[in-house]
């Protein structure tokens, strides 16, 4: 069969000559390579003190957004939960009462909104599915913890704080 990419390499199984069979030159070559790495600049980032910069389109922890008046944008339509391939999102919808107009933008809102961060694969489908621009994956990395139930993030952790 012809090669499509033209990058195929045919390995030669030729007999090694005496110099190659001694292996010592190859060993010294290897020692030279490791030695050159010894003095090379180290790639380490000293994490707690220095943090690595994320790229522009990095997808981190979710945050539920508010509009310009500080009201929650989410209307509990459930499209994010539907689009989620890992089924990490659940929510309970509730109707807006009188006098809560400054809290919730639409007539329906999410009373409970939970994301299981152990299931989430940070694909960003929820962000794309949302018609109200209510959820964005613009946070940091999920914090490590000792028990699993702390990884179910509710509204207390997800909701953007009110900016005055």
């Amino acid at each position: 069969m012809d090669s499509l990419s033209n990058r195929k390499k045919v390995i030669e199984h030729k007999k090694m000559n005496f110099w190659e069979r001694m292996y010592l030159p190859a060993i010294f070559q290897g020692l030279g390579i490791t030695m050159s790495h010894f003095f090379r600049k180290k790639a380490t980032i000293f994490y707690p003190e220095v943090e690595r910069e994320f790229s522009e389109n990095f997808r981190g922890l979710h945050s539920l957004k508010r509009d310009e008046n500080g009201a929650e944008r989410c209307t509990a339509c459930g499209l994010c939960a539907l689009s989620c391939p890992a089924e990490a999102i659940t929510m309970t919808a509730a109707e807006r009462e009188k006098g809560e107009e400054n809290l919730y933008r639409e007539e329906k809102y999410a009373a409970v909104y939970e994301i299981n961060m152990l299931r989430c694969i940070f694909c960003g489908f929820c962000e794309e599915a949302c018609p109200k621009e209510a959820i964005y994956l613009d946070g940091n990395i999920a914090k490590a913890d000792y028990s699993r139930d702390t990884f179910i993030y509710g509204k207390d952790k997800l909701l953007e704080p009110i900016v005055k």
Partner: protein
Amino acid sequence: MDIYFIIEKLILISAILGVSLLIAMYTTLAERKFAGFFQDRVGPNRAGPWGILQPLADGVKLFTKEEIIPTNAGTFLFVLGPSLSMFTACITSAVIPWGPDLTLFGKTVALQVADINVGILYIFGVVSLGVYGIMIGGWASNNKFSLLGAIRAASQNISYELAMGLSIIALLMVTGTLSLREISIQQEGWHWNVLYQPIGFLIFLICSFAETNRTPFDLPECETELVGGHHTEYSSMKLGFYLFAEYINVFVSSAVLATLYFGGYNFPGMHLISNPNVVAILGVAALFIKILLFIFFFIWIRWTIPRFRYDQLMKLGWNILIPLSIINIVVTGLVIILKQ
């Protein structure tokens, strides 16, 4: 036997033991640091500045860990294994001359614990005894991986001891003595034995790697196929003893290599200094510089060359090193006869 002699030797023994333990401790740190450097990392750097307290932290960790003796293991032998490893590693340094004689309070003090006239053979014997620690521990663990590690250790040590012994014979033909002290004295100036015995040195070097179970030859503890080899079942400080004994062995092997082939405590320009005590101190420093370079070489090799396959190991030992060392003996003998 006067009391001063005993006190002098006791001080010397405790100093050597302390220094070898200290160097072994810091070799563990150096190994991890240099491994980091070779792999473009920085290695442990959190415990103290540049991580210099890391060995202490490791020691405390190993001491305080839970000690587990498997239910079906032979308890006595299980404990004997690591102790024997540690013991044989520590007693090897007894015959190494650490420097020229010191003169203190009008008395000459030899910087060597025992100048027995079969010094090399003593080291050779104790090193060959070292495999018992691994074998007993591996067998007493009552675990198939440990047993396989023990068997590998036994066959590897026997195979490489032969080549090592034969390379030593060629060296002895040049030096004409078995005493390490006399060998050191003979190498004064630039008469280092490595210049007369380059092939012998190479064989001895390879065999020291094999005898200390260092990386190209670390098949007894080969973690990819044998879990942990002979120390699979070990925990806490018993494991620590096995790991620590390896580093003491590296230190002692470096000392032996430096003494036998690289001039021991001799350094260039030694005859220019007249004060014997200054010479002694500088000699000790020279020997330790050589030892540290060899330790660095051991580490360097470990992070460069991958492990042998078992058949390659046996082939290298029996088919290459032993014939090569016999040829080396014959050539050395011929040269000695032709020179006379």
